[in-house]
């Protein structure tokens, strides 16, 4: 999978690139509108991570350039402005998703995977891991071919773990993934804990192994080893 990161902030660009490389992506970066336009003309990407506030132009304008290329590229818009207008405009112009700074890398990963699933495999691809089989299109999960009855939040939680295997997911990151930015922080950890416990119980009851380990005081991690 080939990804282009368009981001003017050096440190962010490098961190994202390093992270995505670890996730087996082939990464290219652009630090300006100009460079991005150049690269888009020369190469084809599976997904573009696009910061809309660039020093030499508005990232939203790049969207139309990308669209004229007609090459089934997924676009994830990144903005420091949590503004609905930008979001709606971005999505109208053909972006697949929108993410606001600051975001978790696990969240970025999860969003990229979701975009790719929709774009590249038309949502039909299933996600498998050990005894788990997950059908994103139907939002169904099977353990040893037995259907697991999950609430929407539990399903999302499991998917989040499965797309971020072997990564410590902090409680904050999970809470934000499930409920967005605006829930008061005090509730969220209890929330995460409650949902996770319910999920674990259901998995165990269905005969699955509990791969989710608690990283004390920090969060949780789905371990494959």
């Amino acid at each position, binding site marked *: 999978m080939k990804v282009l990161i368009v981001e003017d902030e050096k440190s962010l660009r490098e961190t994202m690139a390093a992270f995505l490389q670890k996730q087996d992506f082939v990464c290219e970066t652009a630090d300006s509108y100009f460079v991005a336009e150049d690269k888009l003309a020369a190469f084809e990407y599976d997904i573009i991570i696009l910061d809309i506030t660039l020093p030499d132009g508005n990232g939203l304008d790049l969207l139309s350039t990308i669209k004229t290329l007609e090459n089934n590229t997924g676009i994830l818009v990144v903005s420091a402005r949590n503004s609905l207008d930008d979001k709606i405009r971005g999505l109208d112009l053909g972006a697949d998703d929108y993410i606001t700074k600051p975001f978790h890398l696990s969240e970025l990963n999860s969003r990229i995977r979701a975009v790719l699933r929709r774009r590249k495999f038309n949502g039909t691809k299933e996600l498998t891991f050990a005894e788990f089989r997950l059908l994103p299109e139907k939002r169904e999960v099977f353990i040893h071919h037995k259907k697991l009855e999950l609430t929407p939040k539990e399903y999302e939680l499991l998917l989040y773990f499965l797309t971020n295997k072997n990564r410590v997911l902090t409680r904050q990151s999970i809470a934000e993934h499930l409920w967005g930015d605006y829930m*008061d922080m005090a509730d969220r950890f209890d929330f995460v804990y409650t949902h996770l416990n319910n999920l674990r119980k259901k998995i165990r009851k269905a005969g699955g192994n509990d791969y989710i380990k608690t990283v004390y005081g920090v969060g949780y991690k789905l371990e494959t080893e």
Partner: protein
Amino acid sequence: MKLLHKINQRYLISSAIVLLVGLVIFYFLINNIASREILEGLHASETRIVHELGKHETVPHLYPLIEVKPTSKTGPAYVKDTTIFDPVEKENEVFKELNTFRKINGQNYHIIIRALAVEKKDIVSSIFLSIAVIFLLLVGTLYFINKKTTATVWLPFYQNLAILKKFSLKENRKVFLHQTGITEFDELNKAVSGLTEKVRADYLSLKEFTENASHEIQTPLSVILMNLEEILQQNLPEKELTKIYQAYEAARRLSSLNSHLLLLTKIENGQFEAENTVLNDVIPLRLEAFQPLIKSAGLHANLVIKGIFQVKMHKVLVDILINNLLSNAIKHNRKGGEIRITISENLLEVCNPGIPEPLDEKEIFNRFVKKGSKGLGLGLAIAKRICDTHHLHLRYAFAENRHCFTVTREGVGR
């Protein structure tokens, strides 16, 4: 006290003093003129009587006006006031009397001539009466003029005042004041217009600055958070992990605080478009989302629907409002307590038992008031702001050991 009343009061008080001084002056003046006239008359009469006596040696006796008595006494003439019973008027009257002693044709006469004096109390009362009438006329005229001027001269002033009373920075509108055609008012208008314009400009630039600063903070925060998150992925000893996690959590908190403050700004700026939303549809969904938490806290929720509450509000804001009220009711609940949600046509009420004493109603909606919770202290402030900007009232009440938050429509009684 109104300016007009104040001016009129001064005016009337000084008029009253001037009139009182006038009364005294008038009294002495009139008294003086009257006595002089009477005296002149008395002397004229005396001259005529002396003339008559010289010619006919007798004059008609006209008591009490004229008395002529032969006498052996002589002396200078004198004037005095006497009180005599007047048989015609049948009462005591004050007379001015002139006494002279004359030798006419070898005979000494004592001539007494009297004239009715103008009584002092008559003078006083008549002057007082006329002054009182003048004073009343003055008051009446003033009242009339005031009424007229309030309706005409002061009208633009009051109109401008009404405009200024409505002035709000949040509405982001220029203030247009009426021209009054009165120099003082127009100058005031100019000063006030300049002032509001400056306040508005300062407010806008401050707001812009805050917004930009908030947005600018997000990028460095992203750098911090991403890098900390990556360090957390490494297999570090627990001690180090805890330290990094603490730094990470603090940065998260900062970021969350920032985005909440930005949310508040956005609500105040009206950047959320209103759409018709039925609270009855939203609340069950929110309740369901909270269900695991409610259950794990050993609480139970009761939803009582008495009517359909429809609001004009962006869906995101409705969610935030309901979330904040519900999470507040969960957070500050008693173990095993109830969350009672009542919806009617004009009311949404969320009640829960909690600490057995009422909270400070004025304080709880302020920013950063936490009351023993670990949150940011912005939940209720945001809920309040959302209500305020959507013609709704958010109120707090404590009754029967229950803390209740109610959302009502503006202008609709509870």
